């Protein structure tokens, strides 16, 4: 097929969603379909497309339902992925009742016969390089920049309230921490006898076992990483936030604390001060852009790059405290969140604004971050924190 017509066919494919006479050979269509899935977020690449072709050559492509089931088994590896797949399938190959009209779709050619290498070669021929930009318009829905956000004034906390909040937060943190380390303990069945080494050692003594050699299973402890937004939009909460972060770090071992606004600073060391006032002084001195704008995405990326390898593993709980009000690039935030979720055991996002009347997580930053958050909870008053604690208690 000459390149021009190929391109045109694809463009119309994206433009007209309903009636679509797909032409050309099945291989080209399957590759196009795979590229569509990729743009919708499935991890589908040339290898998967080649597998899809191999799979199709093992079934009856005249049977539409069979084709559907086959492609789905190969290309959608998860329940969420299946939902995306279903939508894309009918959209791409035409609605079920239009079966007769669709051509070049599964159901057109009786059989397809390709083996592994052949399949991959053909896929690579078809798999053009313009897919990353999403050439045929799978655009993110237009976003109207800043919708009015209702803020609630939290500066009016009494000292008593602050203490109580701190106590609840510490309880939450303890619950998270002990829950995970209890699991670690259960896996550890005391000292393990290392028979292999024991046996080797005994050989040197004519098979007499003089000493039982042992090995230890590494005990992994939960670590908590706090990422605390101290930008201007969070200003009202900063005083209270730092106080509870301080309490948290003193109550639970293995807490790493970072604050961010336009940049990221590690304040674990500063918070180690016995005296809160001294700790606050030092933080104020060391954090250059206290109450500036926010670049959450960039700050998270910095965190991942500089500290990720050291503090993140599958026993780490990351708690982000922020209103999600990001003035940076949204896609940076999204990739950073995705990576964070992948590398940590759990990501908890506490949002002081969440319970304000009229607030929905509409600010762009919050919206892209949400899919990667395990627990999204308000943190504006005592009751909300208590609810979070109860929630965690149930999850235990």
């Amino acid at each position, binding site marked *: 097929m000459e390149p021009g017509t190929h391109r045109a066919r694809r463009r119309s494919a994206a433009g007209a969603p309903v009636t679509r006479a797909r032409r050309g050979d099945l291989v080209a269509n399957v590759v196009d379909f795979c590229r569509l899935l990729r743009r919708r977020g499935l991890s589908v690449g040339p290898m998967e497309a080649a597998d899809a072709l191999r799979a199709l050559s093992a079934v009856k492509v005249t049977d539409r339902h069979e084709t559907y*089931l*086959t492609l789905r*088994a190969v290309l959608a*590896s998860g*329940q969420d992925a299946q939902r995306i797949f279903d939508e894309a399938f009918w959209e791409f190959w035409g609605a079920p009742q239009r079966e007769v009209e669709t051509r070049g779709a599964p159901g057109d050619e009786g059989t397809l016969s390709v083996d592994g290498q052949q399949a991959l070669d053909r896929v690579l021929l078809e798999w053009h390089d313009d897919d990353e930009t999403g050439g045929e318009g799978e655009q993110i829905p237009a976003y109207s920049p800043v919708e009015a956000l209702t803020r609630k004034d939290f500066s009016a906390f009494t000292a008593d309230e602050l203490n109580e909040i701190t106590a609840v937060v510490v309880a939450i943190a303890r619950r998270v921490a002990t829950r995970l380390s209890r699991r670690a303990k259960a896996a550890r069945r005391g000292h393990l006898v290392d*028979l292999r080494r024991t*046996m080797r050692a005994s050989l040197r003594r004519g*098979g007499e076992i003089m000493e039982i050699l042992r090995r230890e299973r590494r005990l992994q402890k939960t670590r908590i990483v706090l990422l605390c937004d101290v930008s201007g939009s969070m200003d009202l909460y900063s005083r209270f936030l730092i106080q509870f972060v301080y309490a948290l770090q003193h109550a639970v071992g293995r807490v790493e604390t970072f604050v961010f606004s336009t940049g990221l600073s590690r304040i674990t060391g500063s918070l180690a001060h016995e005296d809160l006032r001294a700790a606050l002084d030092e933080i104020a001195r060391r954090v250059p852009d206290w109450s500036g704008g926010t670049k959450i995405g960039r700050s998270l990326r910095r965190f991942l790059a500089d500290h990720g390898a050291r503090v993140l593993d599958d026993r780490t709980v990351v708690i982000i405290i922020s209103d999600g009000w990001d003035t940076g690039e949204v896609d940076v935030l999204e990739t950073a969140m995705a990576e964070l979720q*992948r590398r940590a055991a759990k990501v908890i996002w506490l949002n002081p604004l969440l319970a304000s009347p009229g607030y929905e997580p509409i600010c762009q930053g919050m919206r892209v971050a949400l899919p990667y958050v395990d627990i999204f909870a308000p943190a504006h008053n005592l009751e909300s924190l208590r609810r979070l604690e109860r929630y965690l208690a149930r999850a235990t």
Partner: protein
Amino acid sequence: MHPEISRIQNLLAGQGYIADRTIATSVYLSIALRKPLLIEGAAGVGKTEVAKVMARALGADLIRLQCYEGLDATTALYEWNYQKQLLHIRLSEGGERSVAEREAEIFSEAFLLSRPLLDAITREAAPVLLVDEIDRADTEFEAFLLEVLSDFQVSIPEIGTITAKTTPYVVLTSNRTRELGDALRRRCLYLWIDYPSFEKELEIVRGRVPAVNGHLAEQIGACMQLIRRIRLEKTPGVAETLDWSAALMALHRDHLDREAVEETLGVLFKHQDDATTVRAQWLDQLLESLATLEREGRPWSQELIARAADRLQARR
């Protein structure tokens, strides 16, 4: 339909999977493409059964590796037969051979105990390897498994590399207590098994507990659809449905009423809390929903019962 798919479908029917093309197609593809099949779904929907059906379809042996937290490569792969080694050392005492020679002797294949993974790749005829509840093993084990599944060879320091004689058919199951890595997912075909529909479950009950009369079977099926809408610690699966049916039979019940349900709650719910919740908060409504369904008349269908379940949920 591809003839092999319908053959697998028939085998599935024998296991209570009535007319399930999705499962049959996935099993067939996994066999045809020699790609591992990852099955996810709630506990009790019969994921493990699928591996058994695959083994039957192939006439192959089934090797099962049950995962648990703390499972490590040694336990899954191989272990040395220490008793045998000890005995051998004793028996060969006083010989002329050097320590190195004797060491080489006792760390040879004759002293190796195959665990499921090694067993699976050293069979003459390709077996079905079932890696059950992979989500319970930790991520290190997942990475290790991925390596074995990619190369189908293992290296044992004392012996060297053992390469698979035949590539086993692999089925992995997960209850989704944790998300599996992307790398593993991409390597596998994927199958999601949901709780059965009313019609399907009815057929399962009739097939497995033939003594149940049609009326009671329908009540049981409907009741399961309703119960699965309730938030519980552990939602009862198909296994519980069958246990419940058998229990009702043993008590000579021919229809569901308050007494029959109360007597048998323990069979249906594995958590005491669940039994208590249902007895205290839901029993009236459940029986009422059933009565409404009876009044609406038969035949009962998934849609009809789903509507009743919606109403039940809305009332809370």
